Every structure is written in C-alpha cells, then in structure tokens.
C-alpha cells in the first residue's frame, strides 16, 4: 500500500465529499424528564469538497463547525441528510461498513497535548494506524514511521521518545504524521494551530500546505482565526448557528463579503495597525450568538443583524448565487451587501 501515494485512478466525480441537507441533533437534559429537548448543532448543510482543495470553515463558538466536521468523517451519526464520500453513501453506514473508508479520512485536532497518549513512545503512536489496519509490522512498521517522521520535519532518531519531550509545535507534527500514515485522501484539520505559539504557527501552516501539494490531500480546515483561514483556503464557508450563511472563493469572500454576518466577523478582527480601533466601523456583533436550543424562524442571524427586515424574520433565505456575483459565491441573505458596503442598515429600496 505504501506505493499508493496518490488516488489510484482518475475518478469521474470532481467532488471527494458531497453533503446534502445534513442535520445533527443532540438530546439535551431538560428540567422535566417527560420533555425531550433537542439541540440542533447542524441544521441542514449542503456543500461539496473538491479533490485537492482546502475548504476553510469559520464561525463563532457553538456554530456547529466542529460537529459538521465530525459528521463528515462519521465520528458522529447523522440525524438526517446524505453524505457521499468518493461516490459511496456513508450516511447510514455501520461501523464495519465504514472501516475501509476510515483509512481514507483522518483528523488533526487542536490540542497536541490532549491528543497524544503521554505514556506511549512517539514511534508507536505514529505506528498505530499501521497496526490497526494491519498494514505493516516489526521492522517494516518502524521504517515507515521513520519515513513519516522525516516527512513532517521530525528527527527520525527521536522514535523512542515520549510526547512530553517534544514542544507543542513538534507534537502537532506527530499528530500530523499519525494522520498521514495511511495516505488518506481527506484530512479534517480542527483548529490545528490555535494552541501553538505565533512563531510556530507559520511552520505548521507551511507544512500542511507542502504536504497537500506533495500528497494530493483534500483539507477541511476549521479555524476561528480568519487570517489563518484566508492563507490556507481555496474556498471558505462561514457558519452561523448550524447553517452555512456564505461560501465563496477565499479572495472574493475577504474582498467582497455579501452576508452581513461575514462582514461583521471580518470587521471584528484586529488589524495589524496601531489605532485601527478608532477608525473602525461601528461594532455590529453585539451580544452573544443566540442558543441553538431556541426555536428559530426566518434567517438565523436576524436578531443580531442591522439590516434585518420583516421578511428576514419570516422566511429563511436559501444559500445561492446572487445575480451579478461569481457563480461560485453563494450567500444566504435576503438583503446582501454590495461591494464595499459597510454592514449597517440596508440603504435604498433593498432588494
């Protein structure tokens, strides 16, 4: 299997992953044992992941971005909706049916301290996937592990060390090596640099970009850091309360955001410019995002949106391409922003 560095044959579908109307609900404890409350973390999401691209997924805490990612690699069962991986329907697949697909999809987590067993040697941690999937054993496994360590920029001679002997950045390299062991096609990166020092983040981001080019990986890249997401992503999806509110090629999204929520998020990022705060447009995002437990009608953002009108409270906008926009630029908003418009109240007639 070690020769299969790239996907075997040219596949007919340009999309590696297709999700349609995916919903994920969790049961929550409620005050009364007779009333079951459901929390809808992902509330009907559809998009495709192209082979070899990086799709960035951004949004505030609790918007459902991590839950969506876990649904895609089927660490969660889907409540509703369809998930296709390389054409195969995994929406209702059982654990044993999923097994052959597991090696093709991997995850890298935020916390390189919590995701590595401190009592095991690094070589055996990275070698786990070979053992689990019965790929290689003994000297051959050790050789493959050392190739991986070299690939991610670790010294292969440190094979017998424990995680505690490595710094945060090196630990994240270990986690990446483990994720890449079986040559996956899809790697879901959930905040992979958020726990790292600023001076180390760029090392890991460059590594991820290099590995993608070298191995033809497809990334779903989750982060709350909008600058990091812009740097690594081909396209970016913005989530709010379980829904994608805007999806566009990275450059377009950052230069001409259409959804007021996207624009407000971008405006909240500190600029690398002294005194930028005083020049900044008035703050739009007041308060906290509403709880996904509350019943929601209409656009999910309407309660915090400065442009909201009666229609926004009644009718949920669809995620679609707007007239005059790039066909790849999808927005779910009744009153999207024009180029260069600040996310204030809609002026003029407004759609």
């Amino acid at each position, binding site marked *: 299997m070690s020769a299969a560095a790239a996907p075997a044959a040219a596949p007919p579908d340009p999309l590696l992953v297709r999700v349609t109307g995916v919903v994920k609900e969790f049961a929550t404890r409620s005050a009364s044992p007779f009333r079951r409350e459901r929390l809808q973390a992902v509330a009907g999401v559809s998009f495709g992941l192209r082979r070899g691209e990086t799709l960035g997924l951004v949004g*505030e805490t609790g918007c459902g971005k991590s839950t969506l990612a876990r649904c895609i690699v089927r660490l969660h069962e889907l409540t509703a909706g369809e998930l296709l991986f390389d054409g195969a329907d995994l929406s209702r697949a059982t654990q044993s049916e999923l097994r052959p697909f597991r090696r093709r999809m991997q995850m890298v987590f935020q916390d390189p301290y919590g995701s590595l067993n401190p009592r095991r040697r690094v070589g055996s941690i990275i070698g786990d996937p070979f053992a689990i999937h019965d790929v290689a054993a003994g000297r051959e496994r050790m050789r493959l592990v050392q190739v991986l360590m070299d690939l991610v920029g670790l010294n292969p001679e440190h094979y017998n060390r424990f995680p505690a002997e490595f710094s945060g950045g090196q630990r994240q390299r270990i986690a990446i090596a483990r994720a890449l062991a079986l040559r996956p096609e899809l790697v879901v990166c959930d905040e992979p640099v958020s726990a790292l020092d*600023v001076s180390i983040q760029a090392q890991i981001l460059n590594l991820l970009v290099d590995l993608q080019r070298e191995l033809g990986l497809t990334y779903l890249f989750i982060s709350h850091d909008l600058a990091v997401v812009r740097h690594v992503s081909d396209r970016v999806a913005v989530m709010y309360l379980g829904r994608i509110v805007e999806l566009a090629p990275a450059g377009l999204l950052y230069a001409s955001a259409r959804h007021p929520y996207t624009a407000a998020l971008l405006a909240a990022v500190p600029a690398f410019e002294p005194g930028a705060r005083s020049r900044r447009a008035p703050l739009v995002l007041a308060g906290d995002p509403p709880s996904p437990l509350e019943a929601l009608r209409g656009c999910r953002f309407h309660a915090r949106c400065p442009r909201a009108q009666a229609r926004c409270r009644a009718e949920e906008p669809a995620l679609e391409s707007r007239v005059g926009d790039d066909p790849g630029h999808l927005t779910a908003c009744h009153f999207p922003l024009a180029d260069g418009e600040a996310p204030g109240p809609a002026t003029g007639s407004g759609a």
Partner: protein
Amino acid sequence: MPAPAAAGVRLLDVRDLAVSFRTPDGIVEAVRGLSFGLDPGRTLGLVGESGSGKSVATAALVGLAPGAQVTGLALYLGRDLLTLPAEELRAVRGRGVAMIFQSPMTSLHPLYPVGWQIVEMIRAHEPVPTRQARARAIELLGHVGIPRAERRVDDYPHQYSGGMLQRAMIAMAIALRPRILVADEPTTALDVSVQAQILRLLAGLQRELGMAMILITHDLGVAAETADEMLVMYAGRALEQATTPDLFARPSHPYTRALLRSRPRLDAAVARLTPVPGQPPSLIALPAGCPFRPRCAEAVERCAKTPPLVAIGGDEGHDAACWLVGEGTA
C-alpha cells in the same frame, strides 16, 4: 499625555526586575532585567510567546508568584512593592492593581453566584454592609454590559457565556476603582466578535476611570489596537520597547520583525509564510548572549555577548536589545 500622579513620581516604575524559580531541574530564570514605567490613562502592551515571562513578571510585582525569587525595584507611587509588608500589598492588590485573567471559566468559583463573589471581594476591602455591596455589584454588572443585571447577579458562573464571564471578571476588577488594571490575555479564550466587544469595553472603562492598563498578550493585532506603548519579550528579556506606532512603523529587533512576518494577513494573500525557525528556548541554563541568537537569521559572533537594551537612532523612546540595530545592518 496625562500628567503623572505626583510631580516626578510615576504611577508604576519597574527597574531591573528579575524573577527566578528553583526547580528540580535547575534554576528557571523566568524574567531578567525588565524595566518599564506606566502613567495614568496609558496602556502598556506586554507582548510575547508562552514562556516569555510576560505573565510572571506582572504577577511577581504584586506578590502573586509563589516560590519565586524576585529582585529589582517596583515603585508604585514611589513605594517599592517588592519590599511591602503582606498586609499593605494586599491593599494594593485591591485598590492599586487589579487583575483579570485569560480564562474566566476557571477564575470564578463555580459553586457561588457571580454577584456573591463580587460582594465578597468588595467587603474584603471596604467596610460596607452586604446590601450596599450587592447594589454596587448589580450596578457594576450593568456597567460592563450584562443584560438584566439585577436578575443575572444571582446566577452561577455556568449560567453565563464565556463573554459574559469575562465581563463579570472585569466588573470585579474595577469594583474598587484600581489605578492599574492588569489584563492577562483577556480575550484569548473568546471569539473575535466577543473579543472586539471586550476590548471596546476595556478602552471605555479606562477612559472613564483614568486607569492605566498593562495588557499581556501574544497577539500583536490586539496589542496594536489597544496599547500606547509596547514591550516585546522573549525568554524573560525585553528585546524591544517603543510606542505602538513606532514599533509597527520601524520594527527593529530581528525577533519583532520575524514575528510580524510570520503572521498570515487578513487583507492580502501571500504565497508562503515566513516562519521563525526553531523552538523557543528552555529557560533553564539559558546560554549566554542574546536569547534569540539560535533562531536569528542575522546572528553574528558578537551575539554571544548579551546586547543591552539601548535607544536606536532616530525615534524617541524606541529601544532594542540587538547589536546589529543602529549599525545600519538591520
């Protein structure tokens, strides 16, 4: 520029502060030779990565670094905090220097209502009846933007969101109208939208109360927006010190420049990031010379000797600790 507290006496004047810890592996020199001053209404940004000593330096000033060996001078309105008796230092911690920390989730006691904790804090420093302290707690919570404060005052910490908890921490910190607020990574655990709200709140309170602020952060963007002056720390030392506009206009120390270069930008796509190579050093048995030397692309033989923090040519009050700065090389 606001006038100093009294003629010639600065609000806070720290000189040659050193903090070290004895550990089984050796002596950790967490902070060495740190000097800075603070005037009312001003904000100093202490910027650095984890282990740079930025948090422990301020904690040591007010006696909150247990087990630490602290030397140097820390004059608060002319009195040295490092030699103050415990009782007086406790008073300074209430009315003089208040602190808010990175994780509001662990800074409040989970089993007591938020308001109760503020009331206790007020009553620990002022002889006021509980009723009166409670009324003040409600007023403070309202002031920092907690909606329906008169009802939320009896909520437990888990009933607050992360942003609301940080607001409650700020309410507690400003309750005694401190002269200095130390904010240690106050927004790191928060979303950018909430971060912007909290930074705005802090700036507003600062204007209103005339507080000085020490903002400890690893985020150059947050510091750029908030601080009047900045001090860049690395391995326990100050490597560069300047007014914020100067620092961004003329970053002079190779470390500062490397940090600025390594960040992806929101407003422009770059093909490839320029990382700072290597790892931050261990603080045990730090080699002599410039601490950034092993990672510095411009290091020369002379860097084996520790460079002093000296004024660089041109800008008023712009210091850097690098042999190459000011020679035209950097």
